[in-house]
């Protein structure tokens, strides 16, 4: 399956927008992450934040949308929109699921949850990026990474 990335220049602030639709197949998470990261301009993120924080955050957001949002239904797409501005980037990832309430996700660091195989995605995301927000329905996430 071929993933096609669309890039467009944003007129207003000379920013860049990257658009990618990913079928709901977990095997595509790695290729989608690489496609986006390799298309990134050298600024505003440092090579280190690009190669670790952005890669891991994208993998988390995509896999959550595929598994919990679209429930692995390959006919449904996960939509990724990355806006690269001068002093920050924003990653928007949305799915076609029912959404969820992020405040109900248990703390994976509590002793009773540490040996669980799942449940760490949102916690990890919050530590990788500068800001995490959701739409009201809970089926779209926006991640902000500031320059540096």
């Amino acid at each position, binding site marked *: 399956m071929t993933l096609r990335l669309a890039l467009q220049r944003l007129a207003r602030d000379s920013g860049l927008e990257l658009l990618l639709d990913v079928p709901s197949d*977990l*095997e*595509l*998470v*790695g290729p989608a*992450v690489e496609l986006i990261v390799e298309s990134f301009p050298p600024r505003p993120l440092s090579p280190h934040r690009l*190669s*670790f924080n952005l*890669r*891991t955050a994208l*993998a*988390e957001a995509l*896999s959550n949308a595929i*598994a919990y949002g679209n429930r692995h239904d390959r006919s449904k797409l996960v939509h990724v929109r990355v806006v690269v501005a001068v002093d920050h980037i924003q990653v928007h990832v949305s799915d076609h699921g029912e959404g969820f309430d992020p405040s109900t996700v248990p703390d*994976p*660091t509590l002793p009773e949850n*540490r*040996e*669980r*195989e*799942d*449940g*760490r*995605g949102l*916690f*990890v995301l919050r*530590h990788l990026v500068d800001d995490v927000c959701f739409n009201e329905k809970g089926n779209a996430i926006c991640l902000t990474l500031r320059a540096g």
Partner: protein
Amino acid sequence: MSFNLHKDKRGITVVAVDGQLIVGNRQELKQAVLDALEGGARKFVIDFTRTGYIDSSGLGVLVSLSKKIREQGGELRLAGLNEDLQTLFELTKLDTLFAIAKTPEEALGAF
């Protein structure tokens, strides 16, 4: 193949993870380790020296493997985490569940 599995001279199973351990390849790692466990291996080192990033699914599979190995009377040690990955283990408190060595040689020497 993003994993390389071999046995050292004392029969300890060493699994090197190349690139990343994420949702798309975690099952491959899990199956390779479970096959070795079923084949009688009990001592394991997972070497992350050449690993760039691990997502929460990758962390989860390590937790699962650690439990399965312990249930069989074995032991899993991790080695070679870079600074970012070490921080990830500390943030998630998984550093309290795993024996983590700086290098694979150190992990092997601890058995």
